[in-house]
């Protein structure tokens, strides 16, 4: 937005109501003591908000985007390729941007001291991946399909299989952590985290789709997951420049 002193800043659109979960969501018990009770204060988008960390190059190792090759042996489980594009709400690719993932192993067990449920760790799987988007905003991981796992949120609670995704976008306003799910998971109906998204269409955007074309014969299944972060308001100053 143009200002009297000539600072022309991009402006990021708010997402429609229902796109993101409420912070206080009774179905997910841990939100009870961890949500702000006071109303949020509106923060105008100024220099610090329309910029953001540009991370990636120099932060990646050779096998960071192939979670099946980080040990001497291969992990157990269904080998999959997960690929997609990081886009803003106007369909613009976000290039050279860091994508971080973490996930459970094929049996639904995380390599973490807090995860003690009786499913074995896999010595050949850490569940951590990083990739950089290319010039089209495209990223790609090779991994194994994570298993579902139980948790203690409610009676006989199970998390649907998912991969955690963290992306930065190009600005502080676009920072997003989400979870990618798999098509037709029978556990969706009882999962409060998945169902915390009020808008049905938005919720469906967290489900990857099976991508037959991207599968590799005799090797790996493939799933496609595009990640969309907030787009920009129509650029006021570009219009103004057009009128000049």
């Amino acid at each position, binding site marked *: 937005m143009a200002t009297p002193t000539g600072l022309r800043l991009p402006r990021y659109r708010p*997402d429609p109501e229902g796109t*993101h979960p409420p912070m206080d969501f009774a179905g997910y018990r841990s939100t009870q003591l961890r949500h702000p009770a006071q109303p949020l204060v509106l923060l105008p988008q100024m220099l610090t908000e329309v910029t953001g960390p540009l991370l990636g190059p120099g932060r990646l190792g050779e096998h960071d985007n192939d979670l099946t090759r980080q040990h001497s042996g291969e992990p157990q489980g269904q080998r999959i390729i997960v690929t997609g594009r990081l886009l803003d709400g106007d369909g613009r690719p976000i290039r050279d941007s860091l994508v971080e993932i973490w996930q459970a192993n094929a049996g639904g067990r995380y390599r973490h001291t807090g995860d003690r449920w009786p499913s074995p760790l896999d010595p050949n799987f850490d569940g951590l991946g990083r990739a950089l988007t290319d010039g089209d905003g495209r990223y790609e991981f090779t991994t194994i399909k994570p298993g579902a796992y139980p948790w203690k949120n409610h009676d006989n609670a199970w998390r649907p299989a998912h991969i955690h995704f963290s992306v930065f976008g190009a*600005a*502080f306003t676009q920072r997003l952590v989400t979870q990618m799910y798999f098509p037709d998971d029978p556990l969706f109906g009882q999962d409060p985290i998945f169902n915390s998204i009020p808008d049905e269409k938005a919720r469906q955007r967290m489900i990857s789709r099976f991508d037959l074309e991207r599968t590799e014969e005799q090797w790996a299944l493939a799933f496609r997951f595009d990640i969309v972060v907030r787009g920009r308001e129509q650029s006021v100053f570009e219009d103004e420049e057009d009128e000049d």
Partner: protein
Amino acid sequence: MGKLGSTPSQTVGPYLSIGLPWEDGPFVVPEGTEGAVWIRGTVSDGEGAPVPDALVETWQADPSGRFDHPDDPRGRAESGFRGFGRCPTDERGEYGILTVLPGILPSGDGGDQARHIDVSVFARGMLSRVVTRIYFEDQDNSGDAVLASVPEGRRATLVAAKAGNGYRFDVRLQGEGETVFFAV
């Protein structure tokens, strides 16, 4: 141009420490940098209990008030200044970020913004991040429009206190002394 709906936010869950911490995450600047200060604090919940599975991220201008970013309309500072810090909380809910004070920034309407750092906090039990700002008690915050927009009784929650050679900035997610969080 067709608009695409945003991907919804989801919680980082209890195992964020598998995926998100970096060895150099807490170091916005390397140790030994002139003027470097530790900003430390505790993340606590609605009962005042420490949150041991949170992640604090910071984003800020360099000491001269510039960003190494193409969308800074004053021109990109090709400084290599990372501006970004990231630290998981430990079992006592404590985090620490080593950085230098950011510069004063123009607000865009002729005024100045006081020195500040934007903060995101993620945790199990939080379906989205919360966003807050760090100001500094020994700096001039009087003309800052964002701080002035916050109810007076709550402003102190945004101001880091001098502590030793650095600052202390606690994050109370809920309840007494609840930190001011922003919609951005």
